[in-house]
């Protein structure tokens, strides 16, 4: 599924997005011969040309991954997205603990290893960054406790 053709198609799509959303970029008062539109159009042309070449060329099939690896990759991506979403509302320590445990499992840790390393990592890094290095991290649901 992933090959030069898909890459070329995505590149053309990106070029199209650049053109569609960039065509109206005109400065209300033009002081200079080249306005804010020209450069995005040049990059769109560059990306578009590369896309066309890749579409014609074809081939370049990415080495296939097994279904187990693919599932792992999807789980990893999903975990990271969920982590990004709950980082602020849930707070740093609980979200990091959960993320760390799931990721450790994906990389072959046992539940005990994943739990202990997640606990050490989440609490330890919170103390280090928030209290030690003055990086303000969201306390979330544990507000008042830590």
């Amino acid at each position: 599924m992933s090959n030069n053709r898909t890459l070329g198609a995505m590149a053309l799509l990106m070029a199209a997005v650049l053109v569609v959303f960039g065509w109206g970029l005109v400065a209300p008062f033009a002081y200079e011969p080249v306005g804010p539109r020209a450069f995005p159009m040049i990059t769109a042309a560059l990306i578009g040309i590369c896309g066309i070449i890749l579409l014609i060329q074809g081939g370049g099939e990415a080495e296939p991954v097994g279904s187990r690896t693919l599932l792992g990759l999807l789980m990893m991506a999903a975990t990271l997205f969920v982590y990004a979403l709950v980082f602020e509302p849930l707070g740093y320590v609980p979200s990091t603990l959960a993320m760390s445990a799931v990721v450790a499992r994906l990389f072959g840790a046992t539940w005990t290893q994943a739990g202990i390393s997640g606990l050490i990592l989440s609490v330890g890094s919170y103390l280090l960054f928030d209290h030690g290095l003055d990086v303000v991290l969201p306390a979330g649901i544990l507000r008042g406790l830590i």
Partner: protein
Amino acid sequence: METLGFLMSGFSVAAMPMNLLLAAIGAVVGTMVGVLPGLGPVNAVAMLVPVVFALGLPPESSMILMASIYIGSEYGGRISAILINVPGEASAVMTALEGYPLSRQGMAGVALSLSAWTSFLGSVLATVGIVLAAPVLSKWALAFGPVEYVALMVFAFACLTGLLADQPVKALLAAGIGLALATIGIDANSGVMRYTFDMPNLIDGLAFSTLVIGLFAISELLILLQNHHDEEEVKMERMGRSLFNLSEMRFTLPAALRGSAIGFFIGLLPGAGGTVGSALAYSTERKMAARRDPAQNRFGNGDLRGLATVEAANNSASNSNFIPMLTLGIPSSGTTAIMLGVLTLYNITPGPMLFSSQPDLVWGLIASLFIGNVMLLAMNIPLVGVFARMLTVPAWVLVPFIVVVSAVGVYSGKSAGFDLILMVAVGCIAYWLRRLHVPMAPLILGFVLGDILETNLRRSLSLSAGDVEVLWSSWIAIVLWAAAGAILLVPRLLRRLLPPEAQLAED
């Protein structure tokens, strides 16, 4: 003489206790990330971008920290290449060719100490080269106006796509994506919002740290997972005799010196760093040994000269990489591109003015390269066993740790959950692009240079009232345009013209 004075003042900057401490931390961290297969200087430096701001470091200290991580990882990469035949980072691929057979023969200790020494030799010689060449080049570069700048940047992109990538189209595409991402946000000249899609978080453009961490750290984790095979036991060879002797040193010195020279000149070219330099040095040495010295030719089965030249070239190239970065503002690797991006975050415009406007920064950085290399040599010979232990840290400890450092770094910049989501999205897209062999270095170079390129292009055309012929109106510009064209076309022509056997020998 003038140079010597500047260098001395550079040493006084680099020798300040905090900068010494940062150089030492950088050397340790650099060696550690170099040892770990998969993690390289790019990932480490990318994760550090927000950290240096959170710590409130002055620009010269950030540069010193990042530079010592960069050179440290070149020292570290050789350790895993020699001990377990897995290059710790890209430019150590050639090191494994001679280094691993040596350690199979019980010579791991000799291979490690000898390669530490030639790494040091290559690095220091290249740094001397920076001291001699950079001020001259930067004076020459002062003649550059906007027109020459546009041509120079096109030349840099051509180098990156023509020399580095096996598929130039994909490298060009990556550069285009980087340039396009750089246009997001408010246009400084006209105040027009470009591609912000009414999202307040995008008015300032994409945050540099969010982009680099997504591109390099997050996508790397997905690649690590893809290549992860359930906890293979890391098998390490015995160390054996731990230090090389004088006759081994004398035997390999000419090879190391040749490697340093090759690495130095290759490192000057944008896009061609340690990987190309070490490959070229290796093939040169291999051919020389086969022709002149067939009796002692052990290439392929653990030849000390092959190991020595590769490590000298690789480190020499990483150091001479700083010359185009400091004098022209053209980074030649992913890591130096990130360092340059960090400079722009400090409101320092990279380019030929850097030597006159920021002497402390430039010379402090150069001096710290000397200091960092001495530290690295001193650490790498006795402590090699400690660093090698890094290889036994399981991935399930390491990966969550990297996610945490990345997320905290990105979050600390703007305290916005938006950037975290952006980081993950960038990471997933970057992973897909990397699986399709789209290189990341041109992308980040495009992002870093995008603004400067556009500003200079518009300035040139303002000067000529819109006439595009101005772009090739000076000799310097014409030469650069021609060179850019040649770099893009010549390798393809050569591939057509040369018989297939000659191509095999090139590899």
